């Protein structure tokens, strides 16, 4: 079981979103908040950007906390609320997965 500060998880997700923003023109940049929609209806990013976020977040969790989780696996699909609905749901999903033995 890994104890990870929620604010650190949020910072990791924000950093991944900012990496996406770095490659977008100024008028297309995403507003980064905990309500930013990541995928599905109303999302502001495409699946290339989503993969970029998945890779950056997974890498940071492994690097900083030794947490090796696949964010887009079957466990993610079995949840009642999609983990990638927005930043908040992704943060909650990561914290829940981190608490699993």
């Amino acid at each position, binding site marked *: 079981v890994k104890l990870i500060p929620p604010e650190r998880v949020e910072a990791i997700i924000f950093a991944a979103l900012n990496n*996406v923003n770095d*490659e977008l*023109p100024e008028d*297309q940049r995403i507003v980064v908040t905990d309500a930013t*929609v990541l*995928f*599905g*209806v*109303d*999302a*502001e*990013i*495409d*699946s*290339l*950007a*989503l*993969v*970029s976020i*998945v*890779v950056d977040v997974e890498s940071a969790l492994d690097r900083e906390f030794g947490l090796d989780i*696949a964010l*887009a*696996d*079957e466990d*993610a*699909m*079995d949840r*009642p*609320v*999609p*983990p*990638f*609905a927005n930043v908040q749901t992704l943060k909650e999903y990561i914290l829940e997965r981190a608490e699993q033995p």
Partner: protein
Amino acid sequence: VDHQVGKFTQLRPLQADDAAITLRWRLGRAATLLNRGAQSLEEQETWIRARPASELNFIIETSANTPVGMLSLIDVDHVHRRGEAARFLLGEETAVRGLPIAVEAMKLLYFLAFDQLGLRRVYGTVAEDNHRMLKWQRYLGMQVEGRLRKHVLLNGHFQDLIAVGILEPEFREIALPRMNGLIALAGMPPGKPRE
């Protein structure tokens, strides 16, 4: 092999009638890290008509038949059973937001290559500045196989080309589960149980 149909997207053959829209995409921001293509409608139409039989060039459409990009399998070699994934471009950026169009388009291309054409290997190159594409291809199973140093002049400077490739078993074991995961995640309604 002409048409490949998925849940969110479909691939249909590139035609001369697509010259205007594909030229617009090729001249747009999303194509700045691709090789320089045609600069006029006439050149683009000529280029499309001149595609050889060793290439399968597709328009990526949404499930509502809206063209949003292009993708090709070129240099298909039935002796060595390999082909190059190339010219991957999403031209209609707003139309593909929130949808796994890119992921499913690549999945359809791999099914075409490995299942229908019987290839053993798909390969490609990515410009070193194209960080997002490189990250994307690696996540979806492509292995980095090499680097062609200062091989192309793109975006005002000479860049390395990163050589990537995927073998058929890697597609089944690495790429396909991740592709299916991303496609399934996109199909989940927000805040509601998945059907």
